[in-house]
């Protein structure tokens, strides 16, 4: 029996790194301490629904095959494709991303990560106005007011509140009296129920509410009785409190990025936080979902200059969200092949987009069976990063953390990075032969 301490949880953007994992003599994870239910499940049930053997579709049916043949088929499909799309990346480690960009450059593919369907608007907002970023450590040490806007961490990031907010920090000795927590959302979520203040906005009216707060903070009076379903007195009171805070932070989630207004919401939120910096110290942070979606943006940025939605077809990176984003590439019928790696687009994309996926070959690299693997032309099982192979990932506040290998992957199963390298070698070999 072995016990590993301070293990990083490769599930959500909190990247909690205080897990204690117990492993028995047969390389089975028997116990996971400190993690939430999501993290525990990922580790304890790592063998559930696994893809264990490569598969290739023949006459409409997925058949088991060797890794070599799966790589061959993948390489051939990629070589034949005229407009390949590579998508995913957010649930794997950074070295896998680096291998993917090399492949994308080599074959002139479009490469996109899952932020195009979650925090893409946050990135566009940042490109419009910049962004005052907070860090989780400073939140715990200093924040007197924490706002969750359009986010329900109790469900999606279960330890977020407990690790960073409802906990003492160096300059916040008693979090119950010295730190307040607000939730702004369209419904009274689980997080809203434990908040010190809940502001309920009408669906689709976040932008109006943010703009109203900005005006009130600047001392203007608004001649209306309510904005976005929030009584004006309540907003005025909130604005007054915002102005008096010495250190505040705004966490924002998909409720803000994916509701009406999208990147304009974020742009406005950034401006709100910027305005608040005239009164106190304010920062903000997107509640990133997949554990390494932040890393996917970072690796894409240092390699290509752009955080997502990159097209290599001209031999250099071009960037156009709305065009080179995966959903748009599929919806417009532009992509003639999808290489999916460490994501499940069939489960998360809009229905018309998923229908389009049926018309093109799909190469799927993932540890698990999922909706995408059911549609795939080729399935290649992958090791689970942070459990079965090492690597690095970035927390939601851009802190890089090293993910350890705890146990061996199932026999014959390789890390994503090695699978992609094999595909690259196969394509390079084919080019040499010609």
């Amino acid at each position, binding site marked *: 029996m072995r016990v590993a301490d301070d293990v990083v949880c490769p599930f959500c953007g909190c990247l909690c790194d205080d897990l204690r994992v117990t492993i028995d003599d047969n390389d089975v994870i028997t116990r996971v301490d400190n993690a939430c239910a999501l993290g525990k499940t990922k580790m304890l049930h790592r063998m559930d629904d696994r893809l264990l053997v490569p598969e290739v579709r023949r006459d409409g049916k997925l058949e088991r095959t060797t890794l070599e043949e799966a790589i061959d088929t993948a390489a051939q499909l990629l070589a034949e494709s005229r407009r390949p799309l590579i998508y995913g990346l957010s649930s794997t480690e950074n070295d896998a991303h680096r291998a993917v960009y090399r492949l994308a450059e080599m074959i002139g593919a479009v490469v996109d990560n899952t932020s195009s369907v979650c925090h893409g608007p946050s990135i566009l907002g940042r490109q419009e106005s910049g962004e005052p970023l907070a860090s989780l450590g400073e939140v715990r040490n200093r924040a007197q007011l924490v706002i969750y806007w359009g986010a329900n961490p109790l469900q999606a990031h279960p330890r977020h509140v407990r690790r960073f907010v409802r906990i003492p920090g160096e300059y916040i000795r008693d979090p119950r009296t010295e730190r307040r927590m607000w939730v702004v959302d369209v419904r009274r979520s689980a997080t809203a129920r434990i908040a010190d203040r809940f502001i309920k906005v009408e669906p689709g009216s976040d932008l109006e509410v943010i703009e109203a707060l900005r005006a009130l903070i600047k001392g203007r009076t608004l001649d209306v009785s309510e904005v976005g379903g929030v009584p004006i007195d309540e907003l005025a009171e909130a604005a007054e409190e915002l102005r008096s805070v010495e250190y505040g932070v705004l966490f924002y989630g998909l409720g803000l990025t994916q509701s009406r207004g999208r990147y304009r919401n974020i742009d406005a939120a950034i401006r709100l936080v910027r305005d608040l910096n005239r009164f106190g110290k304010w920062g903000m942070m997107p509640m990133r979902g997949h554990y390494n979606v932040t890393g996917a943006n*970072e690796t894409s940025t240092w390699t290509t*200059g752009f955080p997502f939605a990159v097209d290599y077809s001209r031999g250099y990176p071009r960037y156009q969200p709305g065009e080179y984003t995966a959903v748009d590439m599929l919806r417009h019928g532009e992509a003639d092949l999808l290489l999916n790696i460490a994501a499940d687009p069939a489960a998360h994309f809009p229905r018309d987009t998923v229908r389009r996926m049926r018309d093109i070959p799909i190469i799927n690299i993932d540890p698990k069976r999922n909706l995408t693997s059911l549609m795939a032309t080729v399935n290649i099982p992958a090791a689970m990063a942070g459990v079965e192979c090492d690597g690095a990932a970035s927390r939601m506040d851009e802190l890089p953390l090293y993910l350890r290998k705890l146990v061996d992957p199932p026999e014959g199963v390789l890390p994503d990075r090695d699978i992609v390298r094999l595909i690259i070698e196969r394509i390079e070999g084919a080019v040499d032969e010609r």
Partner: protein
Amino acid sequence: MTQEILLKNCTVYDPMNRIEGEVTDICVRDGKIVESVSTDAQVIDVRRRAVLPGGVDIHSHIIGSKINSARSMCPEDHRRAVVPKTPTTRSGVGEAVPSSFVIGQLYTAMGYTTVVDPAVPPMKALACWEEIPDVPVIDILMLPLFSNNMITYHYIEGQDMEGLRGYIDWLLRATGGFGVKVVNPGGTYAWAHNLNAEHLDQTIPEWDLTPNQILTSLVRAVEELRLPHPVHLHPNNLGRVGNIETTIAQLEAVRRARRTSKRKHILHLTHISFDSIASVDEGSTRWEDVASGGLELAEYTNQHDHFTVDLGQITFGPAMTMTADGPFQYLLHRVSHTKWMNITVDVELPGGAGVVPYSYSPKSLANSVQWMIALEYALNIDDPWRCVITTDSPNAGPFVRYPLVISWLMSRRERETWLETLNSRSLSRSTLSGAEREWSLYEIAIATRAAPARILGIDERKGHLGAGADADIAVLDHMPSDSSLSDHPEEIVRVFHSTYLTMKAGTVVHRNDVVNPSGVRRRVFSVQPTLPEATRKRIHNEVGQLIDRWYVHSHTNYPVPRRYRQALESPIPLRPAT
């Protein structure tokens, strides 16, 4: 297998070995320069072209979270400059903030082979190590930030110098860092309270400490540890009119602390363009009153020899300001009305670093005066060995504009052409227009090669062409016997923009305008201070506890794992005890 190369007919500029324009051959074996090679050596005849050691950039932001945030915030920057893939190189983009592969390729083409990233937030060092393999060819050194860090403050406030030395040792080993960077000591910390530290003896929030105490304690600790490179200082009040007073006061504070060190230079003052701003009206801080402090700093430099500088020369056109000086970045954002990024980093930079895009224009009075500061300085100092050419890339412009900076230093004619384009009110704010001095190619070789290598303490292997040096060599497409560069400024720009040939660790990495990084040996230089084992043990425990108290990740996950370092890291010896 031994690999030998004979570079024939080199017109050598090797200031460390006092060679100025002598025609000789250079012998290379297995990545090093040697006295002689066998007859099997590959011969490259460079036909009397000028041959310099590989360039050493002492201050350029090339990796890590600041430049990456800037890249992601500014797609508009990248559309101006795209770099397609080639059979030997990867593709990329970017003018002010190029993508990683492009950075290595551009440096290689310019004949630079060693670059210091001067501002690494230590707890994000892992991301830097991940990025380094994607910055081809060049050797890299990293300077972690120490000056706005609660653990640093804990030891200084407790007057525990042994603890401070121990912490520096711990952190440099954990990150693979090379030296100690100090940025706006106390000010960035105060920014967590929306404040700055404008006075060097004011107390900062939450600590019984002043900027001067922080700076001088770190200088003392670095000297006691005998680190190869002294403290690398970005002073307080950066980018403010009249800050020459602060800068000189800080230099004085360090000078008074000098008796603790045997080393001559105990401080490196970086990017003086931003630190030496005077005003026509004493005490005024208005940009209307801006004047160059370049001459004043040069005069101070000529009288006191305890420090070295790099220029941070302003260049016109798009740039990207990025510093660990949160309050400065916010100020710049407020006056320039552009986008602003603040990057808080836990306990190490509670107030945060910042990024603001900026474009320098000769039409602006302020920018015109800023342009003259560093040139005025460089043309008035006695000792080029204490002066390094930089643009604080990309703060005062990207490093690809070094050839322009060199042309301004080497050619009075070229300066006059540029002076004519400046805001006319600026001309009386500096003595630059009267300056006649022209730097020689030998002096340029000092300020871009020999001096930075010596200031960094890596001069055994870098910055010269004598036996034992790394075979990092820049062959310029210029024959000194045929023409004088100062009469042909456009030639200066051409030959420094793209070499005839660049060799890195004995491998030809640039020739005929083709960059080829394949097979080249590269390094990340670090240091390993020596400490009594008992001290190291105590500090190791204490730092672990402090991290677990103040940070929200475990101290065991702080150090960069060997996996990322082992193929690259190479420790540089400490300075000998005297």
